């Protein structure tokens, strides 16, 4: 039976120890549903690894292995090679948080993509090291507060822009890379499914809210993930065999104001107190716009 196009069967059990309103837990439910029974999951260290397996219990109903912080892609490579040798047609899926994917495991991930293993890497992107207490990562966006990029009189939070990992991995010659958000869950599910079914190294960056680290209300998790797309912060796009396909937002002139997105999150609170930091917000808005214009241009030119 399918509900809203998703299989009804659950492979990620309730009773896991994720915080209330965890976006990554919703993301994991989508990932496991897209993976299905005939798959092996590999996970690097991160929130989901910790909350899903408090020994001797496990939330997983699929074969699952945890290595270290950096080597999910390497383990997946080994499993894929073994399966290829034994002639089994099982999907191998590596899962990591943004810390493991953007920073610590980046070399391993790049290596596995270069070697061209037939596996899928999925990053649930909550934009900081949430498990260890909200430290900045390569994925943390400009202007966000974290404990290692604190905001104050002389600081606006993180001062560097988010790393564009999707394009870096597309440059490895991957047949399918995509950027998705849990706010548009059916779209995310379709992208995950396409990535898993495509042969070769594929990647999906799945934007997932973290109410604890973003200092947002638990019930707003999905709303924030949706707003991230509608304001252009997290555009939904795929790169299939090197060709861009932009899903949302299509029309740059109908973007929602960025403030709507920022105001729901405590990690951007310093941009509105004591008075609104117009300069920074305008800079962010312009950069988001520029990024979207580029994506549209790529699509137009068939790149």
């Amino acid at each position, binding site marked *: *039976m399918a*509900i*809203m196009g*998703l299989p*009804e069967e*659950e492979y*990620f*059990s*309730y*009773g*896991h*120890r*994720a*915080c*209330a*309103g*965890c*976006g990554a*837990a*919703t993301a994991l*439910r989508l990932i496991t549903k897209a993976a299905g029974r005939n798959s092996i999951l590999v996970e690097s260290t991160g929130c989901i690894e910790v909350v*899903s*397996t*408090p*020994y*001797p*219990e*496990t*939330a*997983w*109903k*699929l*074969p*699952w292995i945890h290595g270290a912080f950096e080597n999910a892609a390497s383990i997946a490579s080994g499993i894929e090679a073994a399966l290829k040798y034994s002639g089994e047609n099982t999907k191998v899926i590596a899962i990591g948080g943004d810390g493991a994917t953007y920073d610590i495991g980046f070399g391993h991930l790049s290596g596995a993509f270069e070697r061209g293993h037939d596996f899928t890497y999925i990053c649930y992107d909550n934009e900081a090291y949430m498990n260890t207490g909200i430290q900045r990562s390569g994925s943390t966006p400009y202007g966000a507060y974290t404990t290692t990029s604190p905001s104050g009189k002389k600081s606006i939070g993180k001062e560097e822009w988010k790393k564009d990992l999707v394009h870096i991995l597309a440059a490895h010659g991957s047949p399918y890379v995509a950027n998705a958000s*849990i706010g548009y*869950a*059916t779209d995310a599910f379709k992208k995950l499914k396409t990535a898993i079914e495509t042969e070769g190294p594929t990647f999906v960056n799945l934007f997932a809210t973290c*109410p604890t680290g973003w200092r947002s*209300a*638990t*019930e*707003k*998790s*999905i*709303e924030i993930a949706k707003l991230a797309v509608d304001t252009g912060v997290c555009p939904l796009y795929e790169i299939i065999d090197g060709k861009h396909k932009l899903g949302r937002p299509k029309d740059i002139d109908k973007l929602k104001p960025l403030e709507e997105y920022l105001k729901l999150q405590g990690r951007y609170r310093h941009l509105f107190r004591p008075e609104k930091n117009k300069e920074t917000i305008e800079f962010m808005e312009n950069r988001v716009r520029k990024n979207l214009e580029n994506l549209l241009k790529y699509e137009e030119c068939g790149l």
Partner: protein
Amino acid sequence: MIDFEKVKLKVNDKEITIGCVLESNGSTANLKTGAWRSKRPVVDFDKCIGCGTCWMLCPEGCISKREDGKFEIDLDYCKGCGICANECPVKCIKMIMEEK
């Protein structure tokens, strides 16, 4: 296949399997996380249209389809985040304070 039950080790009087391998069975269901909750969702089944939005977006996966096609929430595991109430297109879920 290795039968992991048969290759148990004894560490500090506790039996563990080699490599701490566990059967993938979703045993976290032993802990009823409903105790974490401070607000409780209440579904108005007359208004529910059975679309499944709450089921799809629930981080716990504790919402299931009833025989009549509507969705009910398992309060043993619901952590009371309120995503279902916020996202329901017909607003048939209300969050009320838990009281002892």
